């Protein structure tokens, strides 16, 4: 697999003609946005003054007007960047993924099905809205792998019956075949309780988590400090989480600045990286040619696809060959 520096080279050298064309589009979109923005502000001010004159400045109409203008702005923004986004994914992200591994296929508008997300058992909350994009499928070192952006939300109602949406997970979700056979369910989550409340109270809080299986204490202090493991088979959990696997997970977590959720269910590994944003979207307000921007695309792809190598999932047990 290509290294980050090789991929960054590829981004700047091979993709340069497409990048500079897209950069021109981006600048044009930005100036259009400024134009619409100014018009929007002028319209808002004129109507607000009119409302203020007739109904008073604190009238609720002004708030409605403001919300209306912002919503309209959102619609216009999406219309403006729609083609640009499509172009960017086709001409930049697709070749970038092909460069990492030609065996991978990329479909911008697809995402991993909901049943896989639910099977992972990473998030116990019910899901009321589920979506995503940027689906990558294929095999790396002969290991079937698929991942995409996922946004899962749930709804609550307050005392007035108003519904509110909450994000359960937003980020990258990956499923790959695991190199060992197992029947049990093992879930590895970031250890928030122990970090916040310390060993004693945090450990107790984890052990009374009724929505989860039993806590499994593992014999790697560094891993234990960062993660909490729930599972229904203490032996199989350790069969999956060998000392070297725990070390690799700790190392992987060091590489990424977001919380890592991993589960092992039905002979598959499920990884969710809670980035909190949509990945592989073109930047609108910063230049596509900026190094930091390029690094973000390259890094995200590299560590996601590199996970197979990182966790040595290709070292199959003989009985799985």
């Amino acid at each position, binding site marked *: 697999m290509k290294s980050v520096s090789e991929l960054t080279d590829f981004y700047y050298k091979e993709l340069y003609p497409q990048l500079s064309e897209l950069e021109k589009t981006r600048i044009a979109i930005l100036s259009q946005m400024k134009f619409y923005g100014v018009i929007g502000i002028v319209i808002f001010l004129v109507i607000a003054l009119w409302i203020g004159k007739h109904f008073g400045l604190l009238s609720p109409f002004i708030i409605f007007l403001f919300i209306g203008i912002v919503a309209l702005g959102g619609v216009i923004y999406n219309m403006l960047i729609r083609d640009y986004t499509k172009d960017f994914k086709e001409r930049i992200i697709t070749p970038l993924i092909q460069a990492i591994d030609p065996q991978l296929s990329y479909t911008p508008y697809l995402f991993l099905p909901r049943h896989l997300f639910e099977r992972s058992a990473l998030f116990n909350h019910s899901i009321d809205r589920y979506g995503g994009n940027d689906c990558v499928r294929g095999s790396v070192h002969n290991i079937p792998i698929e991942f995409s952006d996922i946004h899962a939300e749930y709804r609550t109602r307050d005392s007035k019956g108003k519904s509110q949406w909450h994000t359960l997970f937003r980020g990258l979700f990956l499923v790959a075949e695991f190199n060992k056979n197992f029947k049990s369910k093992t879930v590895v989550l970031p250890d928030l309780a122990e970090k916040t409340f310390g060993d004693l109270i945090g450990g107790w809080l984890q052990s009374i988590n009724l929505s989860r299986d039993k806590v499994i*204490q*593992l*014999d790697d202090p560094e891993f234990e400090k960062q993660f909490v493991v729930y599972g229904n088979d*203490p*032996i*199989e*959990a*350790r*069969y999956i989480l*060998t000392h070297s696997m725990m070390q690799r997970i700790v190392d992987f977590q060091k590489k990424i600045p977001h919380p890592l959720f991993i589960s092992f269910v039905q002979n598959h590994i499920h990884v969710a990286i809670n980035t909190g944003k949509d990945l592989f979207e073109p930047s609108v307000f910063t230049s596509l040619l900026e190094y930091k921007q390029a690094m973000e695309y390259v890094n995200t792809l590299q560590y996601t696809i590199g996970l197979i190598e990182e966790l040595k999932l290709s070292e199959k*047990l*003989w*009985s799985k060959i």
Partner: protein
Amino acid sequence: MNILIVILILLVLITVLMYNSLIGKKNQVDNIFAGVDAVLKKRYDLIPNLVSSVERYMEHEKSVLEKVTELRAEALKPDLTNEQKIAYDQKFSALLGSITVAMEAYPDLKANENVIHLQRSLSEIEEQISAARRAYNQSVTNLNNAIEMFPTNLLAGWMNLSRRAVFEITHNERQNVNVKELFNRS
């Protein structure tokens, strides 16, 4: 008077909770040991096969192979205590390790498909055994802690619970196996 009753009820409640948690821990140990036993058996089942396929080649190591067979028969006896089973597992791990090292000297053996098959199954079972050992050690540590720590130790003494042994990494396992010495000895 009322306070006394409340304190009494609380004390009874705490005792019941402690009793139940101790029983829970003891059962967890037994439960996991059943898992350990199952994978250990799986390994013992492979031994006759392994011995019969390698003994034609390994003329010089006959005595070691005989010892493995003898040990297997002993380890499969019924009515062994957990401690004895643990001791047999440790002996087996050391012996099998030395056989694997000795096999390196026989190119024919390394090329034999049957032997490769056996070796791979053996290393897979070895991984399962290692996981089972770790799970068992953790549950024993939890039980031993409860037996020794205040105030559960008071109750544990009354319940006749005693410390259990854990799987230790033997001296042999930690050191590189000296094959020559091993074969000269017998």
